[in-house]
């Protein structure tokens, strides 16, 4: 019995030593990975896209059960406030009907004006509808994974919109998957216009639910409730996609609440404005009709 105990003690000591030696190597290896990632960002980008493409079928498989779970959670939440919600919706509906009338009138008027002025429109945008198969939301990133990729014409830099407004832009593209970086991410910088004053600014995210308006000519002209829209400067974004509204202006800092509700995204549309295709020689335009639904 005693011999066996001794043997076990020695064995465990040897094992511990081997493990300690291995630990050093493993720590060095992980530091090596971090340094390589810092030095060669292209390699990391490729590795990310590869990992994304590998994980995306699995994610798509679990997307439905996850969506069902989400719906159940949302149902439970809404059940509690059904009556208030109904009242609110009725009121909103009335307000929107009034707006619809106004929009129709303005659209007609606008069309006639354009005819008169011989106005040339920009390239027509087409949409690729995508399902959100994965979140990449952590303490450091605000983003999501989509189930569409290069195969259907998604390209890096394209705008991603929801029914309410801009959600973000495409950051990485794989063959069948893409990663969206939300406007709320700390790395997001977006050229925008203040709709009322037509003043240009940059809208920056900082991982919080509110966006920060920077590089503004003068803060004085901005009021609470001002709508912020994309300016279309410097890239593939169409002009005038609604982004959010100003909710706070004090001490020179302007805070914007995004229209898109990131907590309940399920489907989004990727806006193919045609500009990226021109820049890269048209290679991103798919030859065959895409599998994703083209709306327009």
């Amino acid at each position: 019995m005693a011999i066996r105990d001794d043997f076990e003690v020695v064995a465990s000591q040897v094992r511990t030593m081997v493990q300690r030696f291995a630990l050093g190597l493993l720590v060095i290896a992980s530091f090596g990975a971090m340094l390589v990632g810092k030095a060669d960002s292209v390699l990391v980008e490729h590795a990310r896209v590869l990992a994304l493409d590998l994980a995306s079928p699995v994610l798509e498989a679990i997307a439905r059960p996850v969506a069902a779970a989400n719906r159940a959670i949302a149902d439970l939440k809404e059940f509690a406030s059904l009556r208030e919600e109904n009242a609110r919706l009725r009121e909103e509906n009335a307000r929107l009907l009034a707006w619809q009338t106004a929009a129709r009138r303005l659209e007609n008027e606008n069309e006639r004006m354009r005819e008169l002025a011989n106005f040339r429109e920009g390239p027509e945008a087409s949409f690729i509808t995508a399902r959100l198969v994965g979140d990449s939301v952590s303490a450091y990133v605000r983003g999501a994974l989509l189930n569409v990729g290069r195969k259907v014409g998604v390209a890096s830099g394209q705008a991603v919109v929801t029914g309410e407004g801009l959600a973000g832009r495409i950051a990485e593209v794989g063959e069948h998957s893409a990663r969206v970086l939300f406007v709320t991410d700390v790395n997001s910088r977006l050229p925008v216009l203040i709709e009322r004053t037509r003043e240009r600014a940059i809208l920056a995210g900082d991982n919080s639910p509110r966006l920060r308006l920077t590089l503004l000519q003068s803060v004085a002209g901005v009021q609470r409730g001002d709508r912020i829209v994309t300016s279309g400067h410097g890239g593939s974004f169409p002009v005038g996609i609604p982004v959010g509204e100003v909710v706070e202006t004090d001490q020179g800092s302007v805070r914007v609440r995004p229209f898109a509700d990131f907590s309940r995204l399920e489907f989004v549309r990727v806006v193919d404005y045609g500009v990226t295709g021109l820049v890269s020689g048209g290679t991103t335009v798919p030859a065959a009709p895409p599998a994703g639904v083209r709306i327009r």
Partner: protein
Amino acid sequence: MRADGLLAMLDRWGRWALPGAVLLFFVLLTLAPLRAPYLSGALPLLPALVVFQFSLATPERLPGPLLLAMGILLDLLLGGPGAPVGVSALGFVLIRAAVVNNRRYLVGVPFLFQWFGFCLLALGFVILVWFFTALWTWTAIDPMPAMMQYVVVVVVYPLLAPLLARVRARDPLNVPDESRGTAQPGETTS
């Protein structure tokens, strides 16, 4: 080593692959667009919980190189431009080493001690990831969201740990004694 039947062999392979498979599942679950309040924010820390829990009884089934690969996969999938790839791997490896070197405080002790041990190690993990992410992106990242994650995962631990311990302790049928795991009956949690 005596020749096992096919089933027993498959069985043993299954038992060896189980911790890795569970870890992979939780790494992928990190990306699931779950909208449960609070919980969805803590998903990125669950793989660390799995590493801790399986290192308690069967660390030899989560070898270092596997942890390295899983950590790098997690960092690649979680993304974020400029974020360090490999910091989770470093965290996993350190958690495993810490558990293995402190087995006598963590294994075969009341659950509360294990929970406390997890609190300390998870705090170390969160701080490590936060520090390297801030260093690599060279921005002052607000530590509050990371701390919220930490609090949630610490609260989730008593719910998830017994479940994982059950998965781990399950003895399959027809296993020859030689191929059983090294875990002693008193070593499992719960």
